[in-house]
């Protein structure tokens, strides 16, 4: 039993990752938009679990807050507003056969190109492993929020400020786009 728990603990990332993939597949395969949103929510929560298992605690929590708390609710509201449409989706998928086959082949080639050492390489050098000894100075595990804030507000202050301007522009733009034309 302990051995089982230990194995699960060591492979937490892979478990969450596979669950996220399942949620994403459900998202693009389901016919109703509400089911898609639920699959999206599940995938986002599993990605948050992946972040947590990579010891990015602050980002994992931010992921849950931003996605599960904000974006998914926004999507659900818009689905509620929009999906009463009379014109239903005739076919869920739109397959443009020739191009689709070409794209899949290119994608598979890219995949093999990137991962050929992992898949075929018996003589591959030792696998790249996350190195905790380099992260030691940051104390990532204990004070993740502090470390992130130092990076964000000291090293990357300018991108952060630009992001705030972008959020303001997006806010104004969303209001302008979505308001009724009754001025």
């Amino acid at each position: 039993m302990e051995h089982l728990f230990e194995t699960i603990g060591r492979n937490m990332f892979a478990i969450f990752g596979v669950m996220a993939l399942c949620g994403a597949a459900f998202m693009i395969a389901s016919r109703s938009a509400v089911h898609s949103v639920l699959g999206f929510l599940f995938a986002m929560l599993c990605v948050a679990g992946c972040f947590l298992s990579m010891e990015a605690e602050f980002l994992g929590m931010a992921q849950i807050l931003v996605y599960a708390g904000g974006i998914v609710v926004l999507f659900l509201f818009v689905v509620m507003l929009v999906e009463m449409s009379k014109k239903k989706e005739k076919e869920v998928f739109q397959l443009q056969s020739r191009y689709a086959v070409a794209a899949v082949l290119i994608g598979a080639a890219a995949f093999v190109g990137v991962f050929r050492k992992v898949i075929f390489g018996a003589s591959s050098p030792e696998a790249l492993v996350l190195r905790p000894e380099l992260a030691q100075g940051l104390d990532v595990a204990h004070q993740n929020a502090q470390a992130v804030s130092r990076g964000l507000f000291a090293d990357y202050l300018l991108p952060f400020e630009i992001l705030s301007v972008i959020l303001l522009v997006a806010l104004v733009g969303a209001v302008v786009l979505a308001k009724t034309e009754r001025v």
Partner: protein
Amino acid sequence: MVNLNVVLLISFLLFSIGIAGVLIRRNALVILMCVELMLNAANLNFIAFARHSGSVSGQAFALLVMGFAAAEVAVGLALVVALYRKRDTVQVDDINLLKG
């Protein structure tokens, strides 16, 4: 201990699912969700490399990407709502205003 290759593989697969969704779905809402999924796959890579190199820059940038995703989804959903008002549909093949 997380193997970096596993992270890269899962993030690659998430990104591919996102691309496949954008290419084959016709519902504008689902397409937006797939874009979000691709941004998340990129975030996974950011965090994995931050952990790998022991620097915190990757995590800071992942947070910035999250903010961009929020801005993008706000504008995208506003566009979808505006489109629904004008054309009464969110299926992207019914939207062919620019087709001559």
